[in-house]
């Protein structure tokens, strides 16, 4: 199960597990943001390719308007998933 908390106007915190069943929830929150957005993934334990797709699509949407999606505090497991899919080259990952 995925929980999304609002940290500030430009930062959200993803907590729990981002599997394919959470796609609609994630889009419903992410699509409300049109400027550069920071996602704190420090308490995200799991992400599948569906979750990666949601983040990529959001990144491209923001990018088209000169903004971006930044990801921070990735755990080693989540970092591995980004590395294996080379998405660590797409997103700005910050500690």
């Amino acid at each position, binding site marked *: 199960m995925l929980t999304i908390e609002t940290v500030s106007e430009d930062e959200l915190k993803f907590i729990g597990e981002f*599997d394919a*069943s959470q796609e609609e929830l994630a889009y419903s929150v992410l699509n409300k943001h049109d400027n550069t957005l920071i996602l704190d993934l420090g308490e995200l334990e799991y992400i599948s390719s569906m979750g990666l797709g949601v983040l990529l699509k959001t990144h491209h949407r923001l990018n088209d308007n000169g903004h971006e999606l930044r990801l921070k505090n990735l755990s080693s497991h989540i970092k591995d998933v980004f590395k294996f899919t080379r998405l660590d*080259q797409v997103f700005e990952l910050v500690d």
Partner: protein
Amino acid sequence: MGNKGIFKRDADELQFIFQFLREHWKELKIEDKSKKELELSVEEIFMNMVRHNTNSDFDIKLLVEKKDGSIILKLSDHEIQPFDITKTDDVDFEEYFRKKKTGGLGIHLVKKLMDDIQFTHSNGISTITITKKI
């Protein structure tokens, strides 16, 4: 040792699949990293069956077993036209990023995370077997 679960063709079943796997993990000595990689691989294959084999109304079967120091997971689905995921092309990342694609990374992840993937098709049933050494 083996254990079988039967799941409906719906993303909302993932919670029950994870529950089923985690019950099984309790009996086995597996590192957290391997558990997550196995769960991720099961989701990718399950969702591939749900999204791409839309002509089937049959449930999807999942078998878990430990053999010779490995975890073996088998997912079986009724399939008229077999789709062998082991024969899919590698992702061309240059093109992937250039065309701003956002899907199609699931099978790539399974190939990266598992030690072996096998596909069989017999009597209208496709079975994907993934193996991870523990």
